[in-house]
């Protein structure tokens, strides 16, 4: 059992501004610098050790726009800056992408409640792929162990840890359903979260103010909040990142499942679907009549969780 297992590898904290420098201390330093009239050396409150290059990059990062308002050049510039900052601050060689959605693609997901055995390989793969906080054990996916005849996870056990599958139980996974009519998007006061043209609901971490309205608005518990700086051992960080996906988050921002945007936009399956040993997870293009997901919708008994709310999720459950 790894309940008591401690992370032994060197710990890395996240954040564009580093762990020593918060927005507040940055601004405080900025005002002091401005008051002193030393406009040439504007590094905020954390520039004492930082190189001038790092300070310049941070400065430019601080005043960038919302991702949706950026031009293509601005997107490329910020991605480049973030790659350089990761190198300067933590010695990480990351490859960050700002890959755009593919035309005529709308991602959809189907989950086979008959086949799932509750092995939780999906959860482990998701944590690894998306650089999720190892300290507070943030997980985008939650598997529930349910008694037969129930199709509502609230009646199930979401924290089981015993040999699975248990006889006469079945398993149902819950994650962000990427609703077409998503309540979380309308709840956001800063427009930091939106639905991309390929149907993925994403968060611009730099515009999130951490008010957690979206968390309250989501009827599916699909969103996660960073109560502290997420901690991922340096050698476990996934360096293939996407600006709207698994790049490192920091204290005080929301995050969520992005259907592994860094993988799916390259034609790959999300990490959970790829890791599933039972084939319970079907992922594909809803706009392609030949896709697997369309076959499931045509030929299987499907239902959506809390469909009556009108959120129009793109995540179906089906049974054999």
């Amino acid at each position, binding site marked *: 059992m790894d309940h008591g297992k401690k992370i032994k590898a060197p710990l890395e904290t996240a954040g564009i501004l580093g762990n020593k420098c918060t927005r507040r201390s940055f601004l405080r330093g900025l005002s002091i610098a401005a008051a002193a009239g030393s406009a040439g050396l504007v590094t905020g409150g954390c520039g004492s050790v930082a190189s001038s290059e790092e300070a310049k990059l941070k400065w430019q990062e601080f005043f960038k726009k919302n991702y949706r308002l950026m031009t293509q050049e601005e997107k490329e510039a910020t991605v480049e800056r973030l790659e350089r900052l990761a190198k300067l601050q933590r010695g990480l060689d990351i490859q960050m992408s700002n890959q755009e959605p593919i035309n005529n693609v709308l991602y959809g997901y189907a989950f086979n409640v008959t086949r799932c055995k509750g092995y939780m390989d999906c*959860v482990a793969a998701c944590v690894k792929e998306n650089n999720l906080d190892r300290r507070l054990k943030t997980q985008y996916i939650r598997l529930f162990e349910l008694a037969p005849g129930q199709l509502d996870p609230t009646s199930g056990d979401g924290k089981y840890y*015993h040999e699975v599958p248990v006889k006469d139980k079945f398993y149902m996974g819950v994650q962000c359903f990427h609703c077409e009519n998503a309540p979380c998007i309308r709840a956001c006061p800063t427009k930091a979260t939106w639905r991309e043209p390929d149907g993925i609901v994403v968060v611009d971490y730099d515009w999130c103010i951490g008010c957690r309205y979206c968390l309250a608005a989501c009827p599916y518990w699909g969103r996660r909040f960073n109560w502290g700086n997420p901690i991922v051992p340096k050698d476990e960080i996934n360096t293939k990142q996407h600006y709207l996906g698994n790049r490192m988050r920091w204290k005080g921002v929301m995050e969520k499942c992005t259907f592994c945007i860094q993988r799916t936009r390259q*034609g790959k399956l999300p990490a959970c679907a790829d890791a599933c040993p039972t084939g319970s997870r079907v992922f594909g293009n*809803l706009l*392609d009549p*030949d896709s697997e997901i369309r*076959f499931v919708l045509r030929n299987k008994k499907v239902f959506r969780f809390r469909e009556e709310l009108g959120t129009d999720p793109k995540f179906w459950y089906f049974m*054999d």
Partner: protein
Amino acid sequence: MNILSLRFIFLLLLPAVIFLNCQLAMAGHDSVLELIHAADQPFDNMQIESAYQLPVKTVQSKESYQGGAFRVLARKDDIGRYRCSVCHTKKKSQARDGALIAHGDIRINHGQGENELSCIECHDRQDRDFLVDMEGKKIDFDHSYQLCGQCHFRPKRDWLGGAHGKRVTYWAGERVVMNCTSCHNPHSPAFKTKMPETYSLPLDE
């Protein structure tokens, strides 16, 4: 027109007004189902160039799915002592402990009670390099779905379509799916019980 007929007209119109309001509340974009029903043109999966080059050996399937031909993972390379006919000859084997170095460890747990399968129900008695179905047709090890499908026809139908089994790595590009034997041990096909890979913390209530 008296007040009564006006009230009547109002009552008639009321559901329509409520319905329209609901429609407006949902407006802004089409629902997923509308989008799906509108999409009837096949998507060119080969346009996504990053979805190629699997580092595994695949073979062209002998059957097709709704999108036409597809590929399945090859099996023969994973069979430790293929070709079987190297040992299974007409000659009597002289090797000491032959059963141990070969596959004497295989225990069949496939089929229940009286219907438990024996080796030769799937393996060809004459030509050990092939499987054989109930009609006596030889089946290649790479195409075991043809054999499994004769009993498990519903899973096979779902597998062909994509509701059973899974694709390998990519949702786009050429369709490559896992074979029956990629996930199921043919001699003991049911999934085993085991400890989960990780665990979740309790929800705050």
